[in-house]
């Protein structure tokens, strides 16, 4: 996500084109996730350790590259962000129209991706094979599914999507890059996957819930409540923990999650 955020930002900054920026951001995080794939799939190292370390690497790498390119100037460089797109007619509906149909392209895309990914996961041969590899890699292997290749594809796809998420932060929301801009959002996303019971629709609902918490917190700050803003900022994090406790026992991860696949055993 961080890598995507920075790469997307840089891409846009240098090409002056938001679309190209997105592509570059997605490609960069896709490549970054390849490292994850190589270590966990080919070398079969522990996925948790590798993930933690790669997070630290990404943090250092993005900060380093950003500093190297822009120094530590007072006025952070910014870019022309993605402009909101108004959907004709629907966008004219008062109130609801502005909320639902006056967003930037990426928001529409995100919502569109929900049914698309659900459909790919549950209605195509590719999705079936992918789920099989996650549940019981050996069974999939005996049926000729190339387990390692499928896992690589999954990791890279995951990387590209999080890169897109990172791009959203820099290119559509904040228009600039800062150190650790994601502030744990990647981990909240993992919580959302658990909370959403490993199903795209559930995940969409879960993220909406987190979004609401975030929006509420901003809104309360703007309204100037008596609550210190630090407590408002805590809200999404607390919500994540509460959500995880609430979903306990009802969300079953794929059986072979985080288990490296060993061919002869």
């Amino acid at each position, binding site marked *: 996500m961080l890598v995507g955020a920075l790469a997307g930002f840089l891409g846009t900054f240098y090409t002056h084109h938001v679309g190209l920026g997105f592509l570059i951001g997605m490609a960069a995080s896709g490549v970054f996730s390849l490292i994850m794939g190589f270590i966990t799939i080919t070398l079969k190292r522990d996925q948790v350790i590798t993930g933690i*370390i790669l997070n*630290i*690497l990404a943090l250092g*790498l993005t*900060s380093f590259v950003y*500093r*190297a390119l822009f120094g530590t100037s007072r006025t952070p460089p910014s870019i022309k962000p993605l402009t909101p797109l108004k959907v004709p007619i629907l966008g004219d509906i008062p109130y609801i129209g502005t909320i639902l149909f006056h967003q930037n392209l990426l928001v529409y895309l995100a919502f569109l991706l929900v049914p698309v990914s659900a459909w790919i996961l549950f209605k195509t041969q590719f999705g079936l094979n992918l789920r099989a590899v996650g549940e019981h890699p050996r069974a999939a292997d005996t049926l000729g599914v190339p387990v390692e290749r499928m896992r690589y594809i999954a990791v890279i796809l995951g990387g590209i999507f999080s890169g897109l998420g990172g791009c959203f932060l820099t290119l559509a929301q904040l228009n600039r890059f800062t150190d650790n801009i994601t502030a744990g959002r990647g981990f909240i996303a993992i919580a959302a996957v658990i909370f959403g019971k490993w199903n795209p629709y559930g995940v969409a609902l879960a993220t909406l819930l987190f979004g609401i918490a975030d929006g509420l917190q901003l809104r309360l700050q703007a309204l100037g409540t008596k609550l210190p803003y630090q407590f408002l900022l*805590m809200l999404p*994090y607390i919500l994540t923990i509460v959500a995880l406790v609430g979903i306990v026992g009802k969300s079953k991860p794929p059986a072979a999650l985080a288990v490296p696949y060993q061919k002869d055993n």
Partner: protein
Amino acid sequence: MKKPVEKNTEKNRKVQEWRRGRSFLFLYSPLLSFFLAILLAFLLSSLLISWIGASPLLAFKALILGAFGSLNGFTETLVKATPLMLTGLGLCVAFRSKVWNIGAEGQIHLGALATTLMGVYLPHFPSFISLTLTGLASFFAGGFWAAIPGWLKIRWGVNEIITTLMMNYIAILGINYAVHVPLKEPGGFLPQSALIQPSVELPILVERTRLHAGILLGIAGAGVLHILLARTTLGYQIQVVGLNPDAGRCSGIPVGKIILIAMVLSGGFAGLAGMGEIAGVHHRLLENFSPGYGYTAIVVALLADLKPLAVILVSILFAALIVGADTMQRVAGVPNSLVLIIESLIVLFVLGSRALSYVRHPLFFVKDNGQRTTEGKLRIS
């Protein structure tokens, strides 16, 4: 009856032969692969340095001189090593029981908060008593912060990676609030607490430097933990729970309790690290007093292969990187975030080389009904 003792010693020789054979293949030696990983990490980062137009040689020279080149630099390295060491030690315990405590950063903050509270509000006692009380308070503050995700895990099976990370943000925001409002220095303008009283300050070891007694605490802690893990039933149970909790439960080990103990120990050591920062270095609570020690300590613990004694060396090495990086930034204009890159690259290379050596090492080939089963699993995983 056979004479088994002789038989065993013969086998013993065989194993030793294998081990000798290992030393010829340099990749198999963990120490060598460790240094090789450091070398590779530096090589790769020198590419980055030259990419931004600086000279890698100059940068690394600045890095090494900055860390070890002067008394000031060296003591500063030890000052930075202290929180890494203490936190890394705690993480050894948690990681050995396979609880992925990513929340050391938050636990450090809690320890710091406890120290500040003690330092500001504790009635005046002799230094020895004050420090002991403060130490206990920060240990249990950090331990308490770690116990929450630990409890959520054993009670409901909530993933501790996410909860500990979330707890970090909550703790940091909480400290932020504390120094802005309730603990803010009366009459001050900066977001910081009042100075703590001198009886709670850790003694300075070397005149005119910042080197404080925290480092001694770290080294002593390493010794204690080493003995605890290797020689006591508690250490044994932590190890069993980490490697196979089902077998542990089956043989009567109270797995939940052990996880909770490991978590409290882990958070407690992080809390002590927080105490070291406040009572030893800053003497008051600040925003951002920890530049991510909690995260770097994860790398330290992993790289030390979860061995407390190794943590001492690795934490000093990493502290040297941090201190040297500041010099490097000043002298060679290389952003100090390079350190994070070097650190993580070292671990990645160590992970990679272990994969290679395990696959080929004869000790890790196993016969089981004529089939090779799995290669030896990475000990830290």
